[in-house]
């Protein structure tokens, strides 16, 4: 009923260490490779006493440890049922995986994408840049088809698509490559404070190379002021970089207006569309976008690949990061990976094909989730509700500490912000930029809905959040004070 067994992990095979090597080698000799592989797969999740093998979510090991501790700790006090019991139920036999609601971190691979990819790992292994034989020609053809699919989503020409290792590389290529190429005449870059870390860090590194960078602020809704942007443009500005959909709060920036301003002032316009590509309508010609970063694994494609759109007419020049064989119009040397490229192409084709379905489905679930979460007292949606991608919902639950809430929600895979910063326990810089105070930034959680999220999952999440926020508020002295009508700001906190 609660918690779903999505993936059943292979059962543990009783091991006889002494025998195994000879069995294996005989299998290999007899050419029975597939059976050998399945034995190895079972081995990978084997949990022996005292050996720590972490599976993807490590639920099995965690549950086992808890079972151990509880069985030893005979005096553990049974204080009745709490809402948390579901989060920490023990499923020692099979792995129960949490509900996946972290679609901004990455998306599950679409099975149709994997089908496309597999043959490039087996029979079609040619180097797409080998033009002397059929192995190269066949993969080259597939790569070019994939390029067409990727271009079509944003109404671009296939020749304008450069495959990279992901959006981080694409962003670095632009933020470093364009200013370096035009460094003789241009000295200034404009970006915003709510960009992804890779844009901010790349921009910061350009300061060390002698460029000036303007980081535009955002209003309390997370939107930039286009007039402020226009005023910030100088004669020596070479690049404006503004992300389309924010990865933490899902806010959509006014890309078309920014494109017009950049065209008027003859400044190159780059947009980081890792979270936007295929999810909101984007037309590079209509919106005057000169450069665009795209990621494959945010659109149900394989990880490890992305793309950079580089306009050809008028031609945008940039200095490549990598030197080498001059592949990808000389901008990104290195052999392309046909399995990844074709998977990415298929994922892009599906984004276009499923666009209306995805939009309607995600919007419906999103509205349901938002109204369910906001029905709690003192729960607020972060970011503009009107300029908002429905698949990314960021909510603050006041008077509940974020880390303890995530701990209570272990049966739901969520994040309190971007995956890059969740290790540091620092409150989100994006929410800070919106003017949220530390306490509220500490208590915010991001929910991501995607193509494969089910309605039952959303229902479960709403119920779980309501129960557990209530549980933690019962525990919270701040909530008690607020209920008694005490103004928390009037208290002199001791600090620590």
């Amino acid at each position, binding site marked *: 009923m609660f918690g779903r067994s999505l993936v059943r992990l292979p059962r543990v095979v009783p091991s006889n260490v002494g025998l195994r090597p000879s069995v294996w080698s005989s299998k290999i000799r007899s050419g029975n490779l597939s059976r050998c592989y399945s034995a190895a797969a079972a081995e990978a999740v084997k949990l022996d006493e*005292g050996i720590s093998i972490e599976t993807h979510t490590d639920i099995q090991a965690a549950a086992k440890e808890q079972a151990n*501790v509880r069985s030893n700790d005979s*005096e553990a006090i049974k204080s009745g049922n709490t809402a948390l019991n579901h989060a920490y139920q023990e499923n020692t036999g099979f792995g129960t995986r949490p509900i996946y609601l972290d679609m901004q971190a990455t998306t599950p691979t679409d099975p149709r994408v994997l089908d496309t990819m597999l043959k490039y790992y087996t029979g079609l292994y040619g180097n797409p840049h080998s033009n002397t034989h059929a192995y190269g020609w066949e993969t080259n053809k597939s790569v070019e088809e994939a390029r067409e699919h990727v271009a079509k989503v944003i109404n671009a020409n296939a020749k304008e698509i450069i495959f990279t290792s992901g959006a981080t590389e694409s962003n670095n290529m632009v933020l470093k490559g364009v200013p370096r190429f035009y460094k003789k005449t241009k000295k200034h870059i404009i970006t915003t404070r709510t960009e992804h870390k890779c844009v901010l860090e790349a921009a910061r590194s350009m300061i060390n190379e002698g460029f000036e960078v303007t980081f535009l602020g955002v209003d309390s809704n997370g939107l930039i002021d286009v007039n402020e942007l226009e005023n910030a443009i100088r004669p020596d500005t070479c690049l404006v970089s503004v992300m389309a959909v924010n990865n933490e709060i899902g806010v959509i920036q006014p890309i078309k207006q920014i494109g017009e301003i950049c065209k008027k002032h003859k400044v190159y316009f780059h947009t980081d569309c890792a979270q936007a590509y295929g999810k909101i309508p984007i037309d590079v010609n209509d919106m005057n976008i000169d450069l665009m970063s795209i990621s494959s694994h945010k659109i149900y494609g394989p990880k490890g690949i992305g793309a950079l759109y580089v306009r050809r007419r008028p031609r945008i020049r940039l200095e490549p990061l990598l030197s080498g064989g001059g592949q990808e119009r000389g901008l990104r040397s290195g052999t392309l990976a046909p399995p990844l490229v074709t998977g990415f192409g298929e994922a892009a084709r599906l984004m276009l094909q499923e666009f209306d379905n995805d939009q309607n489905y995600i919007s419906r679930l999103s509205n349901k989730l938002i109204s369910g979460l906001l029905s709690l007292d003192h729960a607020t949606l972060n970011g503009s509700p009107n300029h908002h991608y429905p698949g990314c919902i960021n909510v603050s639950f006041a008077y509940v500490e974020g880390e303890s809430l995530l701990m209570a929600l272990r049966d739901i895979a969520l994040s309190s912000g971007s995956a890059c910063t969740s290790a540091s326990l620092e409150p989100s810089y994006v929410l800070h930029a919106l003017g949220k105070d530390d306490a509220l930034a500490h208590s915010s959680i991001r929910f991501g809905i995607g193509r494969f999220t089910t309605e039952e999952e959303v229902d479960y999440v709403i119920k779980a959040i309501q129960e557990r926020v209530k549980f933690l508020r*019962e525990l919270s002295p*701040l909530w008690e004070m607020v209920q008694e009508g005490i103004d928390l700001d009037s208290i002199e*906190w*001791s600090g620590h």
Partner: protein
Amino acid sequence: MIVSNLLKSTTSTAATRITITQLTARRLYHPKVIEHYTNPRNVGSLDKKSSNVGTGIVGAPACGDVIKLQIQVNDSTGIIEDVKFKTFGCGSAIASSSYMTELVHGMSLDDAYKIKNTEIAKELSLPPVKLHCSMLAEDAIKAAIKDYKTKRTNPTVLH
């Protein structure tokens, strides 16, 4: 009673806990923390206006941790008869205060005042980044005892 039993079981499982600690080295929370967090003991509030109740509130919301700990003391024996807490903070802070209430229940004020944060940190195997949670729990019980003592001395002075 509960305390003594708990301590007994701790020593008997010491050997197993070593392997568990090794296993959890890469995970943030020790199972003991999770146990206290999912089943927190002695949650609630006592009447803070009552003369035999001492209240300690320590921490700050901006730092992400606030502990409120209350003790009800038997005026003639000086034994802590009842203890309640509420905590805003991470799982370790909740577990530290929950364990602290278990420890001090039935203790004399003098003994409770001597409890060190290391005792809590050791029991819950807190990692270094979470040590401040146990310090906060120690501060909370000290503040509660001080509050009870000021409540007690003031009326006597007036008489």
